[in-house]
C-alpha cells in the first residue's frame, strides 16, 4: 500500500459543502440478499446525495458488486427497498430504472463500431438519425475520443474501450451512473489518468455516481463519500479524509491504508500494555482495567526523529526488514525488549539518509499517545 500524499486531515473542499443543500438521489433500505447459505448483503441501508460520487469499497466477496446490481435491478434482493430520484424502483426491472452502467469488462458489443455502441440505446428510442449522430459525436468528444467513432472495440486500447463504455452509459442522460470496477482491467498509468478524467467528467455533469472498487487508493482519490463494506455489511460511511484519519473499526483501519494493529490490555487510566510495551494512550477513555483492546497507528505516524530517552512511549527497536517502496522505505521494527510484536514504520528518503537506516540497526522511535487509535475487540475479529 502506498502513502496518500493528497489525502490530508485538512478538510478538503468536497467536505465543506453544506450537507443539507443536496437532496437524496439514491436510497437503499434494509437490503438483504442471500445466495443459498451465503449472505451476500446483510441488512444494508445507505443514502447518496444528488451529484455525489460514492465508492463502495471492500475486499472481494464483501457484497459491493451485489449491492450495485441490486440498485440496477440486475439482481433481486430478498428484502429491502431501492429508491432512485425519489421514486421507489424496488419492483421495477432494469429497463424501467433510470441509470447507466459501465461493467468491469466494459461489455462493448464487438461487432459494432464505437459510435454504434454509444448510439445503441438511442436508436431504439426512435430518434431522428441526424439527432442520434449529433448526440453520439457529442458524447465521444465528451470522453475525449472525437475522431474514433468508426473503430471497432478490438481496434481500441483498454483505456479507449473504457471511455466508449462510459459514453454509452451516459448516452441517454441517466440520473444515476453505476461503475463496476471500471478501472481494474487497465494498467497502472492509464488507471491513474482515467480516474482523474472520470472524476472531472462526473463533476462537470453533476451526475450522481456509484462506483464499486476494491482499490482503496482509487476510492480515496475519486470519492466524495466512501462506503467501506465487509462481509455483506457496511463498516463505515464517510469522506475519504474521515475514513483515513478516523477509521471506525479495525477492519477499516487495516483495509484503507496501512495500519499497525497492536493487541493490548487496559492497564490503568490512559495506560495499556501491548506485549512487552507499556504504552500511554489518550483515547482509552473510561475503559476498565483488564479490558482487551486493539491499538492502531499508521506507519507514517511513528515518530522517528529527536526522541528523548524519557519521551512518552519511546521504544528501543531493531530494524529487522526494509522494503524499498520508491519515495520511501517501510521498515519492520522489533522492540529490543522482546516478544513477537512488530511495528511497521515509514522512513522518507531524507530520513533514511539522515539517520543512516539499514537492516539490523538499533534506534529509538516513539508511538505518539495522542495518535494511537483504540478499537474494541470482537467487532472485527478478522482485521
Amino acid at each position, binding site marked *: 500500500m502506498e502513502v496518500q500524499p493528497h489525502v490530508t486531515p485538512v478538510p478538503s473542499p468536497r467536505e465543506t459543502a453544506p450537507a443539507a443543500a443536496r437532496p437524496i438521489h439514491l436510497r437503499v433500505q434494509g437490503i438483504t440478499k442471500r445466495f443459498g447459505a451465503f449472505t451476500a448483503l446483510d441488512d444494508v441501508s445507505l443514502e447518496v446525495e444528488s451529484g455525489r460520487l460514492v465508492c463502495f469499497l471492500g475486499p472481494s466477496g464483501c457484497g459491493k458488486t451485489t449491492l450495485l446490481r441490486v440498485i440496477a435491478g440486475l439482481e433481486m434482493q430478498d*428484502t429491502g427497498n431501492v429508491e432512485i430520484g425519489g421514486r421507489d424502483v424496488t419492483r421495477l426491472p432494469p*429497463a424501467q430504472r433510470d441509470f447507466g452502467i459501465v461493467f468491469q469488462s466494459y461489455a462493448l458489443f464487438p461487432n459494432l463500431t464505437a459510435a454504434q455502441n454509444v448510439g445503441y440505446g438511442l436508436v431504439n428510442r426512435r430518434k431522428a438519425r441526424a439527432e442520434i449522430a449529433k448526440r453520439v459525436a457529442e458524447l465521444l468528444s465528451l470522453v475525449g475520443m472525437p475522431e474514433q467513432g468508426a473503430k471497432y472495440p478490438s481496434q481500441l486500447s483498454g483505456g479507449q474501450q473504457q471511455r466508449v463504455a462510459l459514453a454509452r452509459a451516459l448516452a441517454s442522460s441517466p440520473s444515476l451512473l453505476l461503475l463496476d470496477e471500471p478501472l481494474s482491467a487497465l494498467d497502472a498509468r492509464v488507471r491513474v489518468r482515467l480516474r482523474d478524467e472520470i472524476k472531472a467528467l462526473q463533476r462537470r455533469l453533476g451526475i450522481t455516481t456509484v462506483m464499486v472498487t476494491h482499490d482503496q487508493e482509487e476510492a480515496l482519490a475519486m470519492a466524495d463519500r466512501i462506503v467501506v463494506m465487509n462481509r455483506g455489511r457496511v463498516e463505515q460511511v464517510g469522506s475519504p479524509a474521515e475514513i483515513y484519519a478516523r477509521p471506525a473499526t479495525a477492519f477499516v483501519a487495516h483495509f484503507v491504508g496501512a495500519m499497525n494493529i497492536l493487541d493490548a490490555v487496559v492497564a490503568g487510566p490512559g495506560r495499556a500494555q501491548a506485549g512487552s510495551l507499556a504504552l500511554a494512550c489518550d483515547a482509552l477513555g473510561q475503559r476498565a482495567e483488564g479490558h482487551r483492546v486493539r491499538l492502531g497507528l499508521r506507519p507514517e505516524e511513528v515518530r522517528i526523529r529527536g526522541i528523548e530517552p524519557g519521551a512518552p512511549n519511546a521504544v528501543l527497536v531493531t530494524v529487522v526488514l526494509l522494503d524499498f517502496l520508491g519515495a520511501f522505505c517501510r521498515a519492520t521494527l522489533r522492540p529490543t525488549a522482546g516478544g513477537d510484536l512488530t511495528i511497521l514504520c515509514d522512513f522518507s528518503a531524507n530520513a533514511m539518509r539522515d539517520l543512516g537506516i539499514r537492516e539490523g540497526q538499533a534506534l529509538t522511535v516513539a508511538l505518539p499517545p495522542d495518535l494511537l487509535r483504540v478499537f474494541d475487540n470482537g467487532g472485527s475479529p478478522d482485521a
Partner: protein
Amino acid sequence: MTMAMALPVSPRRLTAEEIVMRAAIAALLVFLVLAIAVPLAVLLIKSFQDGDGRFVGLANYARYFTTPTLVASLWNSVWVAALSTAIVVPLAFLYAYALTRTCLRAKGLFMAVALLPLFAPSLLSAISFIYIFGNQGFLKSWLMGASIYGPIGIVLAQVFYCFPHALMILVTALSLADGRLYEAAAAMGTPRWRVFSTVTLPGARYGLISAAFIVFTLVITDFGIAKVIGGQFNVLATDAYKQVIGQQNFEMGAVVGFVLLVPAVVAFALDRLIQRRQVALLSARAVPFQPRPSLAKDAAFTGYCLAVGGLIAAVLGVAVWASFVTYWPYNLTLSLKNYDLENFEPTGYGPYFASLQMAGLAAVFGTAIVFAGAYLIEKGQGVRFARSLAQLIAMLPMAVPGLVLGLGYAFFINAKWNPLGFLYGTIALLTINSIAHFYTTAHVTAVTALKQIDSEFEAVSASLKVPFYKTFARVTVPVCMPAILDIAVYMFVNAMTTVSAVIFLYGPSTKLASISIVHMDEAGATAAAAAMATLIVLTALAVKVLHLVLDRLVFGKLQAWRRR
C-alpha cells in the same frame, strides 16, 4: 442512515419483454418435450404393453431374456463393440499424438483425411469392405477362408467409421498440454518413457476414457454397418429392425430399443461423472507445449500417419471407385452405368433429392431452434426450473441411439390418440426427427460459443432500455456466426448420412438416400448402393468445402471487427 422495516420483496407484474422471453422458453420446452421426451416415454410404455395395448408389466422383458437368439445378439453386440473400441482407441491415440506432439508435416492434410469418414454414411465403409474382402473381393484370400460377412466385417467397418470420432476427442485432449511440465521433467533428466507414462498419459487420461465410451456407444448402437456386412451375425440394432419392420412385433422392438439404450446411457453417465472430476487440468499460467524436431520420431510417426491415413482414404476410395466400375470385379472399365439409379430404385434420384431437401431443412430450422434455444437456456432470465428442464432434455439425445429415437417416433406418431399422426411419412417429420437426433452436439456447440461472449451484454442492453431480442439479433447472432455455421454444417452432414432413426419414419415419396442404400444393397445392387453413397459423400464434402470457403472469403470481410 435510517433503518427501515425489512419486508420481503413481493413479485411484480411481468413486463412485455419478460412475457416475450417466457413465451419463447415455453415454446422451446414444448418442442423439446414433443420432439425428444414424449417419443421416448411412448417407447418405454410400449415395452410394458402387449399387442393390444394392455399393461403386462415386465412380461416382454422376461420373454426377451428367455429367447436364446435375442440374448445371443446382446452378447454379440457387447463383444463386437468392446473389440472395436480396443482397436480404434490406440490407433487414434497414436495418430492424435503425431498430430499434436511431433513435428509431422502437413498436419492439416492428415487431420482432414482422418475426418473423411464423418462425411459418409456408416454403410459406406461396410460396402467398401465387401468390395475388398467380400465374395468378389480382390483381397478375399487374405482372410484365409474366414468370411467378411459377420463379426470380422463389422469390426473392420466400425474401426474405419469410428476413427474420426475418437481422433477428435484425443486431439483435443493431447493439445491441452502444459509445456512447463515437460520442461520440468527434462530438467530433472527424466527418461522419455517415464515422461510419457507420468505426464503425457495422465494428461490425456480423460480424453482416452471419453473416446472409449463414445466409440463403444457408436458401435453398439450403429445399425447400417451390421445391416450391410453382418450377414447372419445378429446384433441388437438389427434385431430391433427385424422385430419391427420384419415381424411387426412392436412390443419386442420397444424392449430391444430399451436394452440398446442401457449401454449408451451407462456410457454417457460414466463419461459425465469422469468429466466432472476433470477440473482445471490447465492452469491460467500454463505454457503451450511446442514439439521439438526429432528425426527418428518424426519419421516413424510420418510413416504411421501415411499408413493409417492412406488406409482411410483407400477404404473410402474403393467404394467410390466401385461405383464407377462397369461390373465388379470382371469388367473394371469405368462407366456411369451404376448412376442410372432408375434401374435400381423406383423413383431414381428421388431419394437423393429427398435427402437434400431434408438435410437443408434440418440445417436451417435445426440451427435456428438449437441456437435460439441455447440462448434462452444460457442467457434467459427467470423461470429457472423451465430452463433447467430444457437443458436436461437437450442433453438427452446424446445418450439415445438413433434407432431407439426412431422407434419412439414411429410408436408416438402412429398412436391412435395422436393428432399429429398426419405427419407420418412427411419430410417435416423426418426433419424434426433429425434435429432431435443431433440436438445435443449442436446445443453444446451453441452453449460453448454463448459462454465465450460477455455475460453482461444482456445487462447492458437492459440498462440502455433495448429489449433482449434486439440485442440477440444485432449482437449475439453476428458474434456467434462462426459457431452457427458450424452447427448448420453439422446438421446438414448428419441429416444427409443418417440411417438409423429415419428408417422407421419415411413414406413412399420421402425415402431418403441413406435408406435407399440399405434397400439397394438388400436387393443385391451393391454397385448402385455404392453410387448413392458416393453421391452423399460428395454432397456432404461439397457443403463442408463451401463452408470453409465462405468462412474465409465472405465472412472474413463481413467480420472485419474480429481483426485487430
